[in-house]
């Protein structure tokens, strides 16, 4: 009964035209059709947050979105976060400095969440960071490293503002 549709989607700045089964989740589309395996699947019921990506700049669970729904839209995954020259962006670097990841499985979703948060609020409070991260479960770190990473970026954002 399932059928296929042709979708046009921009992922990390690249346009793709693909035929997809309409029941294919966006997470599986990214991982298995586009081979962008940086997006991870941890629960497939929208709680763990490992599959979180940016859909038109806003976080979304790619396990709860069908690929057919992103026709005409733009998706950013963990593979699309680094600077143009391929070096880590300030948030990614801060994650290294502060031991914000251990096994790295939740990391793609965490980066999506924190990227959106820092776009919305360049200098968030620790409580705002913690509340944003409730949408991402991490079993390894106890969250402190990733919180410290955001606060490091936030301080830098603050100093940038101060200079302007």
């Amino acid at each position, binding site marked *: *009964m*399932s059928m296929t549709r042709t979708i046009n989607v921009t992922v990390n700045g690249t346009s793709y035209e693909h035929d997809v089964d*309409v029941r294919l989740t966006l997470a599986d589309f990214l991982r298995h059709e586009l081979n962008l395996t940086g997006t991870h699947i941890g629960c497939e019921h929208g709680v763990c*947050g490992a599959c979180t990506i940016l859909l038109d700049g806003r*976080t979304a*669970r790619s396990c709860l979105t069908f690929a*057919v729904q992103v026709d005409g839209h733009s998706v950013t995954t963990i593979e699309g976060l680094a600077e143009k020259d391929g070096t880590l962006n300030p948030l990614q670097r801060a994650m290294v400095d502060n031991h914000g990841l251990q096994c790295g499985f939740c990391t793609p*979703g965490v980066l999506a*969440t924190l990227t959106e948060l820092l776009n919305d609020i360049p200098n968030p409070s620790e409580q705002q960071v913690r509340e944003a991260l409730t949408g991402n479960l991490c079993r390894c770190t106890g969250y402190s490293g990733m919180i410290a990473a955001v606060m490091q970026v936030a301080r830098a954002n603050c100093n940038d503002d101060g200079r302007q």
Partner: protein
Amino acid sequence: MKPAPFEYHDPRTLEEAVSLLGRCENAKVLAGGQSLVPMMNFRYVMPDHIIDINGIADLAGIEECDGVLRIGAATRQRDLEFSDLIARRWPLIKAGLHHVGHRQTRNRGTMGGSLSHADPSAELPNVCAAMDATIEIAGPRGTRLVPFAQFNRAFMTTAVEPDELLTAVKIVPWAEGHGYSFQEFARRHGDFAVVGVAALLELERDLVTRAAVSVCGVSTGPVRLREIERKLVGAAASDETFAAAAISAREVDAIGDHHASADYRRHLAGVLCERALRQARARVTIATDGAVG
């Protein structure tokens, strides 16, 4: 945990959607997908047809029309959360939204989706219950309006018939400067409420002139505590009044499950009712002086 096969429809107009609903057996409407798709992935639900309403342009939006708030069914929870109009005139909605899921799910989740899913612990239906919202439903027989009191029919079942679509929620504001509160106890941030209490108050000096108290998480849907509301009106907005209300709130009929017993839910209803009334009182910015009326 992959969904069973289905046929996918993405109507561009309301009429098209309603027509599809009339034609398709075992169809489900897909809005934000934050409740439906998990159930599909678990294969708890296996619809033959998915009708994706995200492409219907005029189904989303927040507008004030003749003093009444109209929220399109496909309006994202995030857009409600960040709406100045809602924060100013319908602050209970924003207060309730603070407890709804996580920013990642509010980005996609919709007002209509939450109401249609009708989880007994959900916050937005409780807000609608407290505010006596009117639900707009479109179907092959035209558009009809259902008072929220008649919207929840049974456990996770609403007044929306299989061939109908929830299109909007209409909410009349309370008086400017009214008090409001949404108190909730959840095990973790963003979890469904164990129990949540929405309260609204209007005061005249220190007397309650209007009150609404609604509880979620105790029954199959939100429960308005109308007896308590009746006793509040005309009473002093005092700690004693609210403590008495809390004792009555503990009498609410409650259902137990593996998350919490009925006793515990009743206890929480009392505690949160008192806290909600106190916070609502503290938030009243304009109490009429009695000359108005």
